[in-house]
């Protein structure tokens, strides 16, 4: 498993298959924007999203979409507001805005979104 900064600095890629993305780090999720869906409910009863933490990665399932590639264009990002696991969730400085782009061969590119695209907290 990597730290988020390592992922961003070394451009380590994640994966996606169907409606699932696999992120190579662990985090507390606060907000996810996919298409025009703004998801803030990450409880077990949430119908839109399911997050499963594994030893080496984090699985994110988007239940409202069968195939992410068919709805998220190559210029569009899935945007995630998160705090890396192990860091103080109550310290605003630890809030990170991440943009996830779906690429070829099931790979996802993970970038910090602040500088490039619009993502409102």
């Amino acid at each position: 498993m990597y730290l988020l900064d390592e992922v961003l600095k070394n451009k380590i890629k994640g994966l996606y298959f169907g409606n699932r993305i696999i992120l190579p780090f662990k985090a507390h999720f606060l907000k996810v924007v996919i298409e025009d869906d703004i998801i803030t409910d990450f409880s077990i009863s949430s119908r839109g999203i399911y997050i499963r933490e594994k030893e080496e990665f984090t699985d994110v399932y988007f239940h409202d979409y069968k195939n992410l590639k068919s709805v998220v264009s190559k210029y569009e990002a899935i945007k995630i507001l998160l705090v890396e696991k192990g860091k103080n969730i109550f310290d605003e400085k630890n809030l990170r805005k991440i943009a996830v782009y779906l690429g070829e061969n099931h790979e996802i590119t993970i970038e910090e979104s602040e500088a490039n695209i619009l993502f409102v907290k």
Partner: protein
Amino acid sequence: MLTKKILPILFFILIQCSMIFAVPENVHAAPDSVNTAVELQHALPTPWMVIPFVLLLLMIATGPIFYKHFWHHHYPKVAIVLGIITAVYYLAILQDTHSLMHTLAEYISFIALLASLFVASGGILIKVDKKATPMLNVLFLLFGAVISNFIGTTGASMLLIRPFMRINKHRIKPYHIIFFIFIVSNVGGALTPIGDPPLFLGFLRGVPFFWVIANVWYIWLPALLMVLAVFFVVDSMNKSGADDKSEFTGKIEFKGFRNVVYLGVIIISVFLDPGILSWVPSLSPLPFGIREIIMMSVVFLSYKQADESILKANEFDFDPIKEVAYLFIGIFLTMIPALQLIAYEARVFSNLLNQGTFYWSTGILSSFLDNAPTYLNFLSAAMGKFGLDINVKADVIHFETVDQVYLRAISVAAVFFGAMTYIGNGPNFMVKSISERAGIEMPSFFAYMIKYSIPILIPVFTLIWWIFFH
């Protein structure tokens, strides 16, 4: 997915078949394309046929709140099926292919303009590196209002919504977007026929190009200033981002000049209508013309040639325009009976209508129906009071000299009231969609009206009525 592709094709085939087999009585009865009351007397729909339109409006309003999952996946089918119900009624019961073909032509024209402006502006990146303040926002919105008269409310909205969100990224709230819709996407565009489609239709009918600015600016200005003043007060109370320590260079970055040229092409092509320029060939009976072909070519070229880094920065995606395309095919079709009944009633009761009732009727109906045909129907009714015919260009020119207050009331109301709902004007929905993709939780259809448009706009529009049309 298959249903999405097949339904529009079935609908088009249905219309084409009916053109061959149906007896087009109404076509003979109505040589002109405008749905005036005169032609409607031949085939008025039953008021029950307003139900699909009301149903669609209710579903647009309630779907994203109460049955989001169903709506998200099935809204294209809902819109198309309700539209087909109306289409079948017109084909099988009224045997009126004219109204459907006219609506199809209007829809293609509408979506070609929106799509071309959406795609061309998606390849332009404007970054304003200044600290957001209420005054800067007011100036920005004022600029948007003015520019909407040159590139249309849709063009201005698509071009400026992202930079507006970027400036305010540390303090943005839904009200920023809503005031943007009020000012740039609607009220601003009341000065020229390019600004908003109803004024353009008036221009096509014979209203002189500069009549609008000469006769409406002194209504436009106070209305705009009042809305801006409310915005300034609301924005001044927003203290979010006050502790933001970011440094600003004050620079304005502009990328994508090629797409600016494409925007110019779209604006020029708006005038490529056989009704304006006699040398422009008509492609009748096809439901589109040279203008729409140019616009769709711009969609293709401006997307293919756009800088990828700009598309990525703008997070370009066709979904907002697809959403508008699906919802509005349903709206355009299901509103045919409503518009025809209103046209008929307006004509019948035209002698009882004064400038105030023209203002409110045009306005309230433009909030929910397409404001372009609403404008024409009430213009037709107003001209009827003086024994003038909207289909005769000389009569329209004469009308604006006889009694300008009616034309002023109808023009102002058709444009201003488009801001009352998300569906009042084409760009409203797209601005909402773009904002949601940036993570801004926009109010629902009802919340938009109850929290914002009714309490803010209705007092302003009432004051406008009191001063100018009472």
